[in-house]
Each structure stands twice: as C-alpha cells, then as structure tokens.
C-alpha cells in the first residue's frame, strides 16, 4: 500500500488529509433559519455604464442588484421607472405563468401527460427578461423559462398541445413535455442535455455580429448546470469574440436534490465566475422583477452596442419540486420556500403596484380568477386535440420524419416495417 512506502520517522508532522463534501444547512425536519444569507438593501448596488470594462465588475458580482425594498418602493439607480401599464402587464404575465403551471401540474397528476416542470418562485426571471429584450432577440432557454413564451404572448393552447403530445403538437409528439420549440417567438428548441444551449447561444450571437445584424441572443441555465463543460466553453467563446449574448444563471439554490454548494456556490457567487472570463457580471435579486428587468435591459444595451457579453446571476429559490417526478420533502426542509428571504416575486411586484396606488387586492384577486379561467379555457381547447393518455396522436410514419431532410433507404425500410407491425397488431390507434 502506498501509505506503507514512507517509514514513520520520515512522515511530515501533519494531520491526515480530509475530504470536504458540502452539505446543505437544512434537511427534512430541520427548522429553517436563513439569517446567514446576506441580502444587501434595495438600491444599494451601483449602476455602471454599459460600456465599462469587464474588469470593473468584481464588486457587483458579489453584490446584489435590488430595486424593490421591503415597503414595495422602487429605489436606487437600477429603478427602470416603468409605467404603471407595463408594471401591470408584467404582473399579469407572471401570474399567468403561475396559473399555467398549476393547471399543467394538475394535468400531469390526472394522467393527462407524462411529465411537467413548474417554475414557481422564478416567474420574474423569465417574464421580466422577456419584457426587457426585443421580440426579435433569440432566447436559448433551459426547461424552466416557460415565462418567456407566455410573456411573449405565445399561445398557451399551443404550449399545452406540446405538453399533451396531441394531434396539434407542433413537435409531432417527438419531444418530452415542456421541451418547447417556437422559432416564431424567438424561443430555441429545448434540449434535455443541460447547458448545451449556452455555446449555441454564443454561436447565434456571433453569427448575428458577423452578419452585421442588430439582434442579440440570451440564454439561461440553472446553478447546477454551470458545472457543465459547455458553460466554460460558452464563456470563453463569448469573451474571445465579444459576442452579443446575455448569460443568465438562475441560481434557485437547488439542482434536483443537490444544493448549490455542489456547483461551487459555497466558495463564490455565480456572477463572480464572469470576472475570470473577462465578462461583465451582475448579481441580481431574481425575485425582484424590476431588478431582473433593469439588469437585462442593461446587458442588452451592452450587447447591442458591441460591448460584449454579460453574465447575470439571478438569486432566487426553487419553491417547489424539481419536476412532477420529484419530491423535495425527501432532501430539504419543508420550511425553506416560505422562509426564503427574497420572498415571492409576484407578491413583491403586486405590493409595489399597490404602494404606487395603481393596483389593489380586489383587482388582483379578480385577475387571478380571470387568469385561472383563461388557462382553463385554453386547456379545454387543447384537450379537444387529445391528451397523452388517449394513445398515439400523430400518424405513425411521422416517427421517421426529420431525422434527415430526406429519408434515406434504411429509414424507409424501417418505416415500412413499423407500418407492417402496426397493421399486424390490430391495435385501436393503428395508423390512420
């Protein structure tokens, strides 16, 4: 054994090494106390010029850009001074995302689809960004930015058709529910493979720059996914070519059951990673829609004026399970979501509008009711196209469509085989 090679009297006088394995502060049954989470006051972080050198962002990368204070007032240099109409529209989009999530989660529990993922507590991250970007800017989302599509006004029925893999599913039942693709709405095809969209967003942005276009790209990944190699290559390429791209890291503290410490969050912030790449880094209160909006607008201006990429860490909390296949009660304290010091993004924006005298609880309750009805109506319409449990909805031979632009002989042979099997099976949903 290796340890036997060195005689005792020659061994240095050191304690044996020990391997450090991170552990979250609270496990199931623990009482949650988030007082150790440092939350700077709203309005405290400075707002640099969008042309500032990437090297000057170190302090901001460890700070927290916040606009909404505890009294629901918008304060400080990042206050985007949005009109009440825009604030109400953003609030409505966020509430619609939550209503959509609730309905689709229930649809999964009812067996109408195989899978769903909510973004509860993270609605501001996608919705506010969508308001700050141009509609023509290309989004490379992960699976938890459904708010982009909803904020861009995309059809909920179309989204549900995809979730149900029904006859109207634009992706022909080929993709797992929620892996949307909507080119028309600037929403890139979602992949199950984490962070692959990061270098792709850089490539899209580089192409836009190379062609002298004015459009920029934005991409999202979670805190856990920053550990993927693609994150590193994306940051390197974006920095090298000053690509007009916005990197969003949605730090919701959890990657399924592993807390953000396993992505390196105990030693640093995710925004701070930008500094090493020579990228502007901002750390933002992800539950503050105005901070998300302002930071995105700032990064978009930086990108659009050829100043290069920005990495925005959205400090937030995944309020519910990772997916319909997950039970967070198995690995974290049930008290965490309510104890999270940055609160709920919808409530915070609502309180702000109420503080401005531009909204009230009655209108909010009425809106929630209306949105629930809207989602319900969309669901009803989508279900006329079928739900997953009803069987196969797409003509069987579409299974072979789109592997290549034109179908080669071996796929034609396999397609014929499948059709023959189907005929032989006599199943009720046989090929039509």
């Amino acid at each position: 054994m290796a340890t036997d090679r060195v005689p005792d009297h020659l061994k240095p006088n050191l304690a044996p090494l020990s391997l450090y394995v991170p552990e979250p502060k609270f496990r199931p049954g623990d009482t949650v106390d988030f007082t150790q989470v440092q939350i700077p006051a709203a309005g405290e972080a400075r707002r640099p010029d969008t042309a500032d050198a990437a090297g000057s962002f170190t302090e901001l990368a460890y700070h927290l850009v916040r606009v909404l204070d505890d009294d629901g007032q918008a304060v400080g240099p990042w206050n985007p001074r949005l009109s009440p109409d825009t604030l109400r529209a953003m609030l409505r989009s966020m509430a619609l995302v939550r209503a959509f999530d609730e309905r689709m989660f229930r649809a999964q529990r009812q067996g109408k689809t195989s899978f769903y993922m909510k973004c509860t507590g993270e609605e501001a991250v996608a919705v506010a960004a969508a308001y700050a970007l141009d509609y023509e800017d290309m989004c490379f989302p992960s699976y938890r930015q459904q708010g982009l599509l909803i904020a861009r006004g995309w059809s909920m029925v179309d989204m549900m058709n995809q979730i149900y893999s029904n006859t109207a599913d634009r992706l022909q039942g080929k993709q797992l529910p929620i892996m949307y693709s909507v080119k028309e709405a600037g929403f890139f095809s979602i992949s199950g493979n984490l962070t692959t969209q990061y270098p792709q967003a850089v490539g899209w942005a580089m192409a836009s720059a190379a062609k002298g276009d004015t459009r920029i790209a934005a991409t999202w990944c979670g805190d856990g996914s920053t550990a993927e190699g693609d994150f590193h290559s994306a940051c390197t390429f974006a920095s090298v070519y000053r690509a007009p791209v916005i990197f969003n890291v949605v730090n919701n503290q959890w990657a399924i059951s592993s807390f953000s410490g396993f992505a390196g969050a105990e030693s640093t912030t995710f925004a701070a990673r930008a500094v090493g790449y020579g990228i502007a880094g901002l750390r933002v209160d992800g539950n503050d829609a105005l901070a998300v909006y302002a930071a995105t607008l700032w990064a978009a201006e930086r990108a659009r004026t050829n100043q290069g990429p920005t990495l925005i860490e959205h400090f937030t909390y995944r309020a519910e399970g990772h997916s319909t296949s997950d039970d967070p009660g198995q690995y974290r304290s049930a008290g965490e979501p309510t104890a999270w010091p940055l609160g709920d993004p919808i409530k915070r924006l609502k309180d702000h509008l109420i503080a401005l005298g531009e909204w009230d609880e009655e209108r909010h309750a009425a809106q929630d009711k209306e949105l629930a009805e809207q989602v319900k109506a969309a669901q009803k319409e989508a279900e006329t196209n079928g739900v997953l449990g009803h069987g196969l909805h797409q003509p069987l031979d579409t299974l072979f469509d789109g592997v290549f632009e034109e179908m080669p002989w071996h796929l034609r042979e396999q397609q014929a085989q499948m059709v023959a099997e189907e005929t032989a099976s006599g199943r009720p949903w046989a090929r039509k």
Partner: protein
Amino acid sequence: MNMIQAINSAMDVMMGRDPDVIVMGEDVGYFGGVFRATAGLQAKYGKTRVFDTPISECGIIGVAVGMGAYGLRPVPEIQFADYIYPALDQLVSEAARLRYRSAGEFTAPITVRSPFGGGIFGGQTHSQSPEGIFTHISGVKTVIPSTPYDAKGLLIAAIEDNDPTIFFEPKRIYNGPFDGHWDKPTQNWSQHPAGEVPTGYYKIELGKAKVVRPGEALTVLVYGTMVHVALAVMEEAGVDAEVIDLRTLVPLDIETIEASVKKTGRCMIVHEATRTSGFGSELSALVQERCFYHLEAPIERVTGFDTPYPHSLEWAYFPGPVRIGEALKKIMKDA
C-alpha cells in the same frame, strides 16, 4: 491537386458561392491549418468568415450549431478525429437531433471536417478512425473520401447538404495514395488520375458508392486509405476483385453493395478502425441479411485490432497487405 489542395478548393468555391459559409477551428485562420487545408482562406474572405477558435471542441461544435440555427452554414474543423470526443455531446445530442426534436423548425447544416486514420506514426491520439461512433448516431451523415477529386466533390456536397455531416479526411493520403507498402517510396497525387481536380464547382452526390475496380471473384467494401491498399493487394494477387469505395457510410449505397455481392458471392470488408462494433460489423450484417443465399464463403472483416492505436508497432497493427492477403486466401479457398 493533392487532397489538401482539393479540400481547400472546395471551401474556397463554397465560400465564394455562399456568403453564409464560414470556416472555423483551431489554427485554421491566419496560419491556414496544421495540414494547410484552410491556407489562404482568411486572407481572401476575411476574419469574420474564417477564424481561429479557442482550443475547445465542445465550444467549436456548440457555437457552430448556434450559427447554423441563425442561418449560417458553418464548416468547423476538429484538428484530429482523435479529439472529436469532447464535442460528442454537441454532435450526438444537439446537431444530430435538432431537426428531429424541433420538427424541422431548427436545423444544423454544419460540416465537421476532421483528419482521421493512421499509417503516419501518429500513435494513439493522431491515428484513430472513430467513424463507427458516428454511423451509430441517427441524424448525422458520415463521409470519407479516398481521392482529391472525390474529396472536393464530396465536401462541396456536404457543405450544401442541410444535414450535419462528419467529413473524415484520411490524412495518410493527403499528399498521395498509399498502397500499404510502408517500406517502399510513395506516389504523389500528381501521378494519379484522381489528382486531376477541376478548379471550379462540381459535386459528388452523398450516399453513392463508386466501383473503383470492377471484378467477378469477390467484392471488397472499403473506404479512405484502405481503398488504395486493397486495390494494390488485389492487383498483386491477380484476383479479379470488385473493389467498392463506399465514400458515404451514412446514408450507405446499399444497392451497389448488394448487386456486387450477389454477382461475386464473396465479400471482404476492410477498414482501419478497430474490429468490435466497427462499421465493418454493420456492413457484414447487411450483406449477410441481403445476400445470404448468394454467399459462397463467410464474410471476411479485415480491420485494425481491438487495441488503442500503437506507435512503434504501427505496421503490425495496420490492416496492410499481409493481413488482407491472408483474408483473401481464406475467402477464395474453395473458389
């Protein structure tokens, strides 16, 4: 032209024809590539169309996929096929599936060029033939030329193709064909008819094999460097072999293969790549399924051994004239 010049010419022609074609990779820009395949292109088309990249294969391919989604037609280079593995996730999970998973909304019209194959004392990481990894992936095409003429025509077709294509360039025959006799002087492409390459545009359809030597005694299925090795062995043995250069592995020209084996009744498959689960296994299975009643001898696979590619023992590893000759004796035993 030698094969490098032909490949260079293909990119030059396509960049001239289509402003969306861009070339990127490690050392491909100012320097013109470690094999000179991109020499002069940056000077001619500018830095935004031909540029050096960081040393990051997953970045190169990931960025190319994003550029393809934007509407460009990227031709990324991976310096050696041995270094394509860091890009596998982007190739397998992204480029190959993008059209399928988005039901055609997004596509990845990229052509990944990469020098491959052994016979150059490249050792373990400059000699591999990983084509079998790619032929196993639904959604990518795999192309391997064996002459300068084919290299240019096939590369132009690959760049024009709207599907992601892996274009493996047998570096052993960049400068001249190689017949497997490593101890004898080699020819240059200038002495070979396929070294005559038109300077302008032409293309060779993907998915079409080429019968490089018609014959009756047996069918030899081969591609890349091994085309020339197999041809030489058959000539030296005086066997009337039908040698078929597959040129495209996916989609495969099954008709040409099937017609030939049904005619000859014998089939030998030769490739440099390791044997187990190599592309030869797929070829063997296809021939067996389709030509079983015409076969007069078991199908022979002549391949590299199932070991990493060695350095000093290269010529014991390489499926050269001796190994092909032994297989030939076996397959022709009862003829």
